[in-house]
């Protein structure tokens, strides 16, 4: 218990100070596919989701889909796209069989001078195809990842997300998890961007417990990003050739549907 507390305090001290958090993003056009809508359009970026501010992202080092442990490499199929006004990537994908298709992006390291470190956000999101619902709780074997304990589709706004943070396959006690809502209002005609009551509301923060498990109740429907941030046990050269620390982010994107309204009887 005392160890956990110490870890929590340590993690608090190491909280990033930037106002808008960076998030690796994979946003599919839907998180389920069926016969009416058999394909998804996926948009990949490295952005500030709440503020809707994009950043240029180089072609990811790897992008693939993983279904029941089988991977299909999609890196070569990515085409350049503009996401939030900046360089991003996109592709269309049609799942062929029922199942849970995890989409995973391993970006190239991003040098963040203001934080004096490189950032690598391993990002994933799940699409359920033709009612497939097996294997969503399996770790994909990433360097770092959030394993959902709430089934990552078929949820409502207001539901509580529960996830476990893994680094090198092991739970990370006390891991810091940043949570951010993807505000798409700016892109919609006649809609204004959301105004957060304070800067602290832009990126919310939750800590994992001693088993690396965290819970977070999402107050509204839409896309929510969870980024578990930990320091890597290695260094990378910055553009000036100096060895610098690495922030390893495990990012998971979750879509929550609006709760249906009761219809009025005729």
């Amino acid at each position, binding site marked *: 218990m005392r160890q956990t507390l110490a870890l929590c305090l340590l993690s608090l001290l190491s909280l990033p100070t930037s106002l808008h958090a960076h998030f690796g993003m994979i946003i599919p056009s839907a998180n389920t596919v069926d*016969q009416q809508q058999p394909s998804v359009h996926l948009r990949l970026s490295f952005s500030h989701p709440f503020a809707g501010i994009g950043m240029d992202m180089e072609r990811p080092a790897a992008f693939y889909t993983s279904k029941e442990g*089988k*991977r*299909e*490499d999609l890196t070569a199929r990515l085409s350049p796209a503009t996401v939030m006004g900046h360089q991003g990537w996109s592709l269309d994908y049609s799942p*062929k*069989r*029922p199942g849970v298709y995890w989409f995973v992006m391993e970006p190239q390291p991003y040098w963040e001078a203001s934080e004096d470190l490189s950032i690598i956000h391993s990002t994933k999101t799940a699409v359920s195809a*033709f*009612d*497939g*619902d*097996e294997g969503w*709780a399996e770790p994909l074997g990433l360097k770092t990842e959030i394993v959902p304990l709430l089934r990552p589709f078929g949820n409502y706004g207001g539901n509580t997300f529960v996830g476990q943070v893994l680094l090198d396959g092991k739970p990370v006690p006390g891991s810091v998890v940043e949570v951010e809502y993807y505000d798409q209002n700016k892109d919609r005609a006649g809609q204004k961007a959301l105004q957060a009551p304070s800067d602290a509301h832009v990126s919310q923060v939750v800590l994992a417990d001693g088993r690396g498990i965290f819970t977070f109740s999402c107050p509204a429907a839409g896309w929510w990003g969870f980024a578990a941030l930990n320091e890597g046990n290695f260094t990378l050269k910055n553009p000036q050739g100096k060895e610098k620390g690495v922030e390893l982010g495990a990012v998971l994107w979750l879509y929550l549907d609006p709760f249906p309204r009761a219809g009025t009887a005729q």
Partner: protein
Amino acid sequence: MTTLQKTLRPLFLFSLLMAGLWLFPALSHAHTIRVFAWVAGDTVTVESGFSGGRPLIQGTVEVQNAENGTPLLQGKTNEEGIFTFSLTKTGQGKNIPLRIIVSSDEGHRNEWLLAAEADHAATEQNTTDPAATTPPPEILLSKKNSDEQLTRILAQLLDEKLKPIQRRLAQAEEQKPTLTDILGALGYLIGLAGIIAWMKSRR
């Protein structure tokens, strides 16, 4: 590996599997039927199960003409939740779309609209062996077989027998070798070369 380890390994794997099943008891109790169907050649395969992956056993399958709702044929799913039929058996040749309705005794039902685009949809591995399903009755030889009929029957038989191979081929196509695979293969070659070199040097 010692002999003890060898004997214990299947046991260990089994207990792991059982532990896995224990972890997800809730998944097997939900009762939404899911249906998935595809065409390969002349054969339509209907796959049905419950959420969580359990097959729907002895589920009723009804095939209709999707345009006018005319019932075309009926059947039951096997112990793997699979029902197959040949398009010729529908009496309307290769004409699709077909509406495939699957229901259970408890009154759960779901359907799949089989459209032309669904052809060759199933390129991934299927856990069931289609050869285990009974061949359509028209394959049985009758006395009045003309050459034409024989050709047709042979083609059908070949279709049926080649299906697993077709599927595996399609699957192999989908899984292109990764860099790791190639490096691994290279490693093997170098290793073999090393063994040969070692054996030669011993002579």
